[in-house]
């Protein structure tokens, strides 16, 4: 059950777009939280629970890859699903991210349809639109 979603992106516009796409994709009842970089995300999870991370890669102070490494070394969050949304993706990065347990990657610009398709990988539900 995904109740609390943390969107980590240095752009407030990107965070808004991501939340809107998630809501249209069926997560309108989830609680959305925001962090502007990896350090702020780690501060947030030290005090709150998170069921799903949505992470950008290119951020100041602590980037998404470093954050992902920290999450995977944290017993509390090593199994928590992570969706990466970035403009920097390519085959090699995508493959590396999947080795780190990222269940899906999305290149920007995202849409409700692309987000829904990714989230269906997490739920194992491939019945489009159900």
């Amino acid at each position, binding site marked *: 059950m995904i109740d609390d979603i943390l969107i980590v992106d*240095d*752009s*407030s*516009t*990107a965070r*808004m*777009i991501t939340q*809107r796409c998630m809501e249209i994709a069926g997560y309108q009842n989830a609680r959305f939280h925001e962090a502007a970089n990896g350090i702020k995300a780690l501060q947030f999870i030290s005090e709150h629970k998170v069921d799903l991370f949505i992470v950008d890669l*290119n*951020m*100041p102070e602590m980037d998404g890859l470093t954050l992902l490494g920290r999450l995977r070394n944290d017993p509390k969050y090593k199994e928590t699903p992570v969706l990466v949304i*970035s*403009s*920097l*993706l*390519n*085959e*090699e*990065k995508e493959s590396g991210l999947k080795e780190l347990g990222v269940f899906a990657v999305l*290149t*920007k*610009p*995202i*849409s409700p349809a692309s987000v829904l398709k990714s989230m269906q990988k997490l739920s194992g539900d491939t019945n489009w639109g159900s």
Partner: protein
Amino acid sequence: MNKSETDIRKALLAGVTTALEGMVFEEVEPADTKNIFDDFNSKLFLVYSPIIDPLMGIFLLAVPENTAKTVTINVYGKADMNPDKSLITDTLKEIINTASGCFMRNYLGYSANFSLGLSVAKWGKIPELERSLAKIYIDLNGKYLMVEVAGKLDVDLPGTKENTPVANL
């Protein structure tokens, strides 16, 4: 890989079109530049996205204030909002970040590795970029913006980082 200016222009137009149509929800067309130069003679929002690896360059988005406001309102989908400069800048940075990623994948292919730096925004007149490779004016439903890519974009010539284009950031 030696690519022509035409390849760069195609990759640039495709990248910007993907980003703008996906975020602003407006049809994107190359602009007829005959009547729009006045829009670009005054101060504008200038947003730079540095290309770091495997080649050195810079991506510039130049947007007149009224167009920038309209673009921000469209991205947020709130017709009655009055975005401040901070929100406009954040939106334009996200657009150029998305467009430059699309451009790099179009230009190099999805298998190629690349890195982009963090975007930087300024308010000012359009600079003369050294080693300009392609400049395109975009018509966004009657509003205009400009995108330009400059630098050393030949991946057969690594080690030219000292030749980074100068944008006076």
